[in-house]
């Protein structure tokens, strides 16, 4: 099989790449809107404005708003959990934000499953992504990393992925994406009731939410590096390859 006659990206790779890109961008944007409604992250099962957060993000007017009155203790003891009524008109666009997030998640999950099945069936992952034994070494990885920074335009002709590309694509497909999806499932009350292990494996709903946030940050960082490399290694050619295949 000659690489010259083979299209750089087969049709199913191009279609699934397009669908996953669109759904990921929508998920990232709506994810930011959803986070802005409650820009606090916690660990464990429970976390709310009346419990301590381990990260507070100054990304909306809801940040440390302090609009609470009517504080009451539930029990007659000094360390009793409390309740308070919110008096502050919070930023909240979750009506469309959440529904659009889940609609995009449907596209991502269904496309992702088809992509996984086809990737295994056509040996796409094995042929193009699994590092080849002869080239898989830390020395190779280091020299590619240095090349990516010093002479980025020379590192890839796009026909064969280099070691660094192979490892990062595998990490995105088999680690970061599944992590984001599974922690997303863990936040669903219906799924959590049906499969309690999906929640407990992360240590609780709020831990899952925090990991979901960091998984999305990892995916967004990948996207930025991916875009930089596309531009530096021949923008026109790369875009053409992922849209029309040649």
């Amino acid at each position: 099989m000659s690489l010259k006659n083979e299209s750089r990206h087969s049709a199913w790779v191009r279609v699934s790449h397009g669908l996953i890109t669109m759904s990921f961008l929508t998920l990232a944007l709506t994810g930011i809107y959803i986070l802005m409604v409650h820009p606090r992250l916690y660990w464990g099962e429970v976390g709310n404005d009346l419990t301590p957060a381990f990260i507070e993000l100054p990304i909306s007017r809801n940040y440390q708003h302090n609009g609470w009155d009517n504080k009451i203790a539930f029990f007659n003891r000094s360390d009793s959990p409390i309740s308070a009524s919110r008096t502050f008109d919070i930023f909240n666009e979750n009506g469309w934000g959440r529904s659009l997030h889940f609609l995009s998640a449907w596209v991502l999950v269904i496309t992702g499953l088809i992509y996984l099945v086809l990737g295994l069936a056509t040996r796409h992952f094995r042929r193009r992504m699994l590092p080849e034994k002869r080239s898989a070494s830390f020395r190779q990885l280091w020299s590619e990393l240095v090349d990516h920074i010093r002479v980025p335009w020379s590192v890839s002709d796009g026909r064969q992925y280099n070691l660094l590309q192979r490892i990062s694509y595998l990490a995105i497909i088999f680690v970061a994406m599944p992590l984001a999806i599974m922690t997303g499932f863990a936040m669903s009350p219906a799924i959590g009731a049906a499969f309690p292990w999906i929640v407990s494996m992360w240590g609780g709903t709020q831990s899952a939410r925090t990991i979901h946030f960091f998984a999305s940050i990892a995916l967004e960082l990948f996207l930025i590096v991916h875009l930089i490399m596309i531009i530096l290694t021949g923008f026109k050619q790369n875009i053409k390859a992922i849209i029309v295949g040649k």
Partner: protein
Amino acid sequence: MNKSTLISRRQALVTGLAGIGGLLLPGCSRPTPPNYGNLLRMGDNLTYIAQRTLLPGQSMAKEYRFAEISSMPATGTTNPSRSNENYDKLLRAGFADWQLTIEGSVSQAGTLTLSDLKKFPARTQITKHHCEEGWTAIAQWTGVPLSSLLQHAGIKSSARFVNFHTYDGWIDSIDLYDAFHPQTILAYGMNGKDLPVPHGAPIRLRVEKQIGYKSVKYIHKIEVTDAFMDQGDSGWAWYNGI
């Protein structure tokens, strides 16, 4: 292409699409809320059908120990007295004159007082509230299983939805699947005391397998219907198990 590949690309595609088709099929016989031609509501309905089809039967939401009860903010309406004189009057009398109306597709429509409700066998559960905003809280809820109340009122076999009318002018509904779930209760107690006003006194709903806003507060009327009672597109998902 390599002929020895066990699963061909075509086979994989056909199997995958058949799987998705199978997911959508049961939806045809299941009443779904209107989507108003809104793509987002279509996605919500897909989630509803998928969760009802794929998730196992009447699984129970996790219950916690008393020591795990946490602080819990009160959000949305926190006191209907400000806008509803009738509620204000009932509150001042300690809800002694409060009545819950049950009507619609039931053979014995009528009203129940708070002490009538407390005569039903009670259920107490310590569960986690998932707020749509992103926060969670654990609290103990005591009340009447909605299923007991619906059976007491003689719910008809044609019934499909249970609608809740509230003092703050809200109407929301759940399907019978949630209505008859063992943890779906009309709570009059929270953390061992009467349900506080900010959390929905005298009674609120607890629907433990959906997002918090489905557990509506300040209920005064339950209306059982055969068809979905269309309140128009609120901009929020009607089903929210996700």
